[in-house]
């Protein structure tokens, strides 16, 4: 299907809107045929980065290449990229068939060759029975498929998706997520996917870049980002709820938290000093012994339970694998699983290994 290309390189991309620095020097390498997610909260620069890749924004500094060719200042139409917008941007006055066929028409494909290509693209996303409807007569999910079909019909070198699932209801979002992944496998086109939903990024992407305040704070596989956050910013962002970050002290292969000494199984060569210890809510247990914590509120999530507690006035979240009765204001003892404790340097905010 594809010619096996679509390697994107961004170097030092900056973009300012007045005094607001949307992108503060982005460096990024996206491999050919990769499913790559740009993850971050709103205003973090992920969508701007996607628009720079699309050519809809011109960066103030930096270069972008695709397969080694400099396209920093190329027009959107010259880049052979296709994009699915958050609001789909379907042409309301055209039928589904005309919408999907539009890029082919603009590309100068002979009129007789368009219908079979349109039909094939529509079949791939299963809307071939809706070709004569207009976008206004489609459901949200069907509109989204139509936008997908319009994007894939031209067999672009790059496939850009800007929060494509955010306008769908929860159930449909889960289904479409799977389908997008399948579509990517069958097309083998480099796909860049913008989302603020980390679960979406974790489940769908081969690799991802985490954006915060116009900068990339980590690039890696979902596994890397989740299990080995590079710095405090990523640690505080990834996970739902994200990991607990507590001030502590490192000494002789152990970390001291709230007066409790926890021997670490996996780190030893380091001088004594202050650290920030990170631990996910699911890696804390309630036990007979351990660090005392006062329960503020316990939330029953159905299958699990989320306990909001305080250790020496600092909030700590604990996810228990089973629902049990814990009264608010009660004091419990918490045990941190030593092999799941992450350490960060409080000055440089970087991970300590």
């Amino acid at each position: 299907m594809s010619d096996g290309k679509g390697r994107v390189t961004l170097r030092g991309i900056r973009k300012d809107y007045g005094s607001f620095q949307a992108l503060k020097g982005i460096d990024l390498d996206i491999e050919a045929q990769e499913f790559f997610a740009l993850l971050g909260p709103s205003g973090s620069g992920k969508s701007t980065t996607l628009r720079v890749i699309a050519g809809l924004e011109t960066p103030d500094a930096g270069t972008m290449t695709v397969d080694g060719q400099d396209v920093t200042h190329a027009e959107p139409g010259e880049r052979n990229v296709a994009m699915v917008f958050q609001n789909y941007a379907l042409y309301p006055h055209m039928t589904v068939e005309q919408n999907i066929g539009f890029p082919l028409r603009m590309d100068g494909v002979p009129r007789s060759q368009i219908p079979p290509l349109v039909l094939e693209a529509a079949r791939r996303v299963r809307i071939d029975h809706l070709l004569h409807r207009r976008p206004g007569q489609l459901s949200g999910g069907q509109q989204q498929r139509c936008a997908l079909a319009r994007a894939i019909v031209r067999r672009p070198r790059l496939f850009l998706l800007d929060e494509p699932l955010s306008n769908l209801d929860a159930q449909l979002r889960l289904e479409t997520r799977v389908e997008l992944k399948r579509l990517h496998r069958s097309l083998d086109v480099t796909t860049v996917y913008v989302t603020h939903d980390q679960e979406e990024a974790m489940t769908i992407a081969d690799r991802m870049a985490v954006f915060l305040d116009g900068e990339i704070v980590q690039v890696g596989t979902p596994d890397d980002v989740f299990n080995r956050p590079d710095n405090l910013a990523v640690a505080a962002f990834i996970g739902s709820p994200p990991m607990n970050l507590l001030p502590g002290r490192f000494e002789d292969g152990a970390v001291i938290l709230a007066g409790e000494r926890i021997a670490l199984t996996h780190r030893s060569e380091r001088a004594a000093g202050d650290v920030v210890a990170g631990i996910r809510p699911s890696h804390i247990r309630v036990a007979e012994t351990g660090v005392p914590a006062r329960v503020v509120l316990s939330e029953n999530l159905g299958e699990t339970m989320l306990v909001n507690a305080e250790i020496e006035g600092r909030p700590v979240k604990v996810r228990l694998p089973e629902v049990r009765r814990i009264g608010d204001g009660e004091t419990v003892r918490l045990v941190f699983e030593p092999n799941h404790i992450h350490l960060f340097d409080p000055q440089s905010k970087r991970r300590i290994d």
Partner: protein
Amino acid sequence: MAAANRHKAARLRRNIVLYAAAGLLFFVWAFPVFWAVVVSLKSETEVLAYPPRLFFEPTLLNYRDALVGGFSILPSFTTSFIVSGLTTVLTVVLAVPCAYAFARLRLRGKKWLGFYTLVTQMVPPVGLVIPYFLILNRVGWLDTYQGMVIVYLTFSLPFAIWLMVSYMEDIPREMEEAAFLDKASRFQALWHVILPQVRGGIAVTVIFVFLNAWNEFLFAVQLGGNTVRPVTVAMYNFVSVEQTLWAKLSAAALIAMLPMIIIGFAAQRQIVKGLTVGAVKGGGRR
């Protein structure tokens, strides 16, 4: 049961009030037209009878005189069509790209340029008659088609541009960006994506501009003359120092209204749609 009846009665009362209000408004607006119809069917002497008589012998002679009599308004119909038509076509052709630029392009000085576009709308028209007269006189365009059309354009363009800007701003930017990514040029995006979506706006523009040009009197009477004499001016032949031929004037006015009424009915749906543009969010996916 009793509650249902009370409901019914309340709804009936409300309907009576609404219909009464609508009837009153209709009366206020339609009365002059109705009066013109009545007058146009009377003889000139009957018109002057006082008090006006409710029952009289209706006649169509006035219409015959207005159409084919000595002061026939038919030749001026052609003039009106030429002037109004040219004004309308030129307005749309110029206003659409102009509105697109205002709505979409990042232009230096766009804000004040947009503001001063409206400058002719800020002065009472009568204040512009003399300057226009002097200008047209200087270039030798008094009593010419091009002179009248240019003068009308100075009024219709600002209006049309701002109307079209509001229509175009209603179209989500992504729609156009999608077209650019689909390899459309700016012109192709305008032609294939934007224009079909502002059809309603164009229809409204056409109607208002044509209507204004058709009904214009002040400039036509001052800057036109013998060559360019639209219906509004030609009708005045029935008014002279010695007498006013009210019945023939009414007949002529009603004939002149006819094209407007036809266009109005034909475009009613577009106008109503046009006036509510932007009323609903997500207009892009209408």
